[in-house]
């Protein structure tokens, strides 16, 4: 019954967008309650649909013809429903919080309108039933992120950050579109029956075996390119930290619920395709793991509280990608693993950002060096932030623990199966770094003595309420799903997503030409034969995590034993490298953008002006010149015309005469 109204999940936020953008100016709070209510209604609907389809084996699929061999449709399978629930729930929390956080901003109505559209775009992306529809909403998400990052558009840094986000993700989007086109061409080549909707997911899954493997690899890599742009993976991650220029609630939305998860979701959605293209999966695993480590190292040296969180997002997204990528070894269960981390991450990252927003709201600065001792004045914020931090680190029994450890163990299995140990090493080291930077942030902000004169006041309850709810989810969702069950029902439910479509992974593995590894074998190898070893593997992330917290405590808390100056100096090249963020700005902006791209643009501009425009101009000049000389004939004097007529007549008469004579002869 709820599923009949599934379209409302997107329609309501769009309605809220229309209402707030036209009427918001006249309403209290900029009409923000429209957006909150619409999103919450979406959550209720999604929950109703979950009750209808869980745990039974049905999926919701509604589709209608659009044009040619494309359709529009709604597809709610396990993968989509968990995303729908997460997006609507987390967005409801964030919008509620924004009612307090954004209060008094002159652009309030615009904020809530754009936030509503952002939510709608993400939800539409999640339950699209074909790749084209997904792409349209994908672009809409990109547009909204641009609008919201540049929300304070009068600030030059915000405007340029918005532009950067838009352009960098655009690089990925072009690859995504190229991937879709390539996939479409290949699908058309198969010769599907008339009336088949070519880009519908069901059709794609059914026909993967018919597409040549090398083509599959290219398609998968191009689609992954799109995901890299959207989900801030190396090397297109540069826009994410800059996206901090928007209001904190926007950061929370982008980093937790809406934007960056889209890329991971795309890879999960197209997982059978990736599975049939193992080289692409290897790339996914390596890039993901590398991003996890790479971003974590930069998080350690940042002083802007939001930037630390931004790098942690990049890092955690790397974990998700790695979780999906190592699926080459462990089978379709990888989808469950990656997605569980995504969902858990949305809760605790939204929580962390909202807490940071609460602190910034009170203290009035982003710089952690000017904070300190906030714990005394903001108990609730501090405690919820602590909950979020513990989850981010993966402290035992928090949600992050269950999701992250699962990824690390999978990465280990990936290594034992002879696929290379790099992903495992990367993600394991990243655990240590994550713990260090997270608790460096927490201690610097909340512990110790105030280092500047700031307002000490706790945020209003409209802001604290969402924090507490999110904190409860961040802490206990993992326990609720894991304890007392043989296997996390989430993994089985989402992991078996593709059974609904009759996807045969063994067949796909043959297509991909990689060694078929049955899950049972993988478990047998790493599970029973190495009992002690297995325990160590499970314990290592915990040890690293707790160790990281201790290190952070020794350096930055009230029980400080060491100072950072003891291990590094101002001249330390490594420190410089990190502070300069690996010279990315220099490489991307100064070298690549200003030298290479600008130089090429100048060259192309020249070619355009001289060759392309030159040809056209020359042709028109010739014609104008010819006309100019010919028009002299048109003297405007009747006598000249008469003369011409008489001459012409004379010539004509002579010719006629000659012809007659010839005929006569």
């Amino acid at each position, binding site marked *: 019954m709820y599923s009949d109204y599934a379209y409302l999940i997107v329609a309501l936020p769009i309605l809220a967008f229309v209402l707030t953008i036209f009427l918001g100016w006249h309403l209290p709070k900029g009409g923000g309650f429209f957006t909150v209510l619409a999103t919450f209604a979406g959550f209720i609907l999604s929950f109703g649909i979950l009750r209808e389809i869980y745990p039974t084996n049905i999926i919701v699929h509604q589709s209608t013809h659009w044009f040619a061999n494309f359709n529009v449709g709604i597809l709610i399978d396990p993968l989509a429903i968990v995303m729908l629930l997460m997006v609507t729930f987390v967005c409801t929390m964030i919008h509620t919080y924004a009612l307090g956080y954004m209060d008094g901003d002159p652009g309030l109505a615009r904020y809530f309108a754009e936030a509503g559209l952002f939510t709608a775009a993400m939800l539409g992306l999640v339950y699209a039933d074909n790749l084209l529809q997904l792409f349209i909403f994908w672009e809409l998400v990109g547009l909204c992120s641009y609008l919201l990052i540049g929300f304070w558009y009068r600030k030059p840094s915000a405007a340029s950050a918005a532009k950067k986000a838009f352009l960098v993700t655009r690089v990925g989007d072009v690859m995504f579109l190229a991937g879709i086109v390539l996939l479409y061409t290949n699908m058309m080549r198969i010769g599907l029956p008339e009336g088949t909707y070519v880009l519908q997911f069901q059709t794609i899954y059914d026909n993967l075996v018919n597409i040549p493997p090398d083509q599959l690899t290219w398609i998968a890599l191009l689609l992954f390119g799109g995901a890299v742009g959207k989900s801030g993976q190396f090397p297109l991650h540069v826009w994410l930290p800059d996206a901090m220029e928007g209001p904190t609630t926007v950061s929370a939305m982008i980093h937790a619920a809406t934007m960056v998860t889209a890329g991971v979701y795309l890879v999960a959605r197209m997982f059978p395709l990736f599975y049939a293209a193992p080289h692409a999966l290897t790339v996914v695993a390596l890039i993901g793991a590398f991003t996890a480590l790479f971003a974590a190292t930069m998080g350690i040296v940042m002083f802007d509280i939001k930037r630390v969180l931004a790098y942690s997002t990049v890092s955690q997204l790397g974990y998700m990608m790695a979780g999906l990528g190592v699926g080459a070894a462990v089978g379709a269960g990888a989808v469950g693993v990656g997605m569980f981390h995504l969902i858990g991450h949305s809760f605790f990252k939204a929580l962390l950002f909202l807490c940071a927003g609460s602190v910034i709201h009170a203290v009035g600065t982003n710089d952690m060096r000017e904070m300190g001792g906030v714990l005394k004045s903001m108990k609730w914020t501090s405690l919820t932030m602590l909950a979020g931090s513990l989850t981010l680190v993966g402290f035992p029994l928090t949600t992050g623990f269950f999701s992250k450890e699962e990824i690390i163990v999978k990465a280990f299995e990936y290594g034992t199966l002879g696929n290379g140990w790099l992903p495992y090493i990367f993600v394991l080291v990243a655990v240590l770094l994550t713990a260090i930077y997270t608790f460096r942030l927490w201690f610097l902000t909340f512990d110790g003595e105030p280092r500047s004169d700031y307002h000490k006041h706790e945020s209003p309850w409209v802001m604290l309420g969402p924090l507490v709810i999110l904190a409860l989810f961040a802490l206990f969702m993992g326990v609720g799903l894991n304890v007392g069950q043989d296997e996390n029902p989430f993994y089985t439910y989402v992991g078996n997503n593709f059974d609904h479509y009759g996807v045969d992974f063994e067949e796909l593995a043959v297509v991909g030409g990689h060694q078929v590894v049955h899950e049972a074998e993988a478990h047998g190898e790493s599970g029973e034969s190495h009992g002690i070893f297995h325990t160590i593997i499970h314990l290592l992330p915990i040890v690293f995590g707790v160790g990281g917290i201790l290190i952070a405590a020794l350096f930055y808390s009230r029980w400080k034993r060491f100072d950072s100056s003891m291990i590094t100096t101002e001249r330390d090249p490594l420190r410089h490298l990190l502070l300069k963020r690996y010279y990315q700005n220099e490489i991307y902006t100064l070298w690549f953008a200003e030298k290479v791209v600008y130089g090429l643009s100048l060259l192309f501009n020249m070619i355009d002006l001289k060759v392309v425009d030159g040809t056209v101009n020359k042709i028109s000049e010739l014609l104008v010149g010819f006309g100019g000389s010919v*028009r002299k004939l*048109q*003297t*405007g*004097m*009747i*006598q000249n015309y*008469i*003369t011409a007529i*008489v001459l012409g007549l004379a010539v004509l008469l002579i010719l006629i005469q000659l012809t007659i004579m010839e005929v006569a002869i």
Partner: protein
Amino acid sequence: MVPLVLYVLLASAMFTIGLYGLMTQRNGIKLMMCVEILLNSANINLVAFSSYLPNQNGQVFALFSIALAAAEAGVGFAILITLYRLYGTIELDNINSLRW
């Protein structure tokens, strides 16, 4: 009876004179006169052929032509008078404000 060929020769001579005048003259009134000569050369032909063939149609046609020429002259001179008022001249070379 005058031979037909003399009429035709007269008409040709008048036509040529008229045409020559039309091509060389610049004065509006002279041009009008040349046009009249042209028309009348045609009229002479019409009447001449008509009387040699026993057929009255040509002469009727000539009458029409004369009436038409009268109307044409009326309109033409009216235009010339207006031009003279506007430009103070009827030298057609000087009246070229619509030229390129």
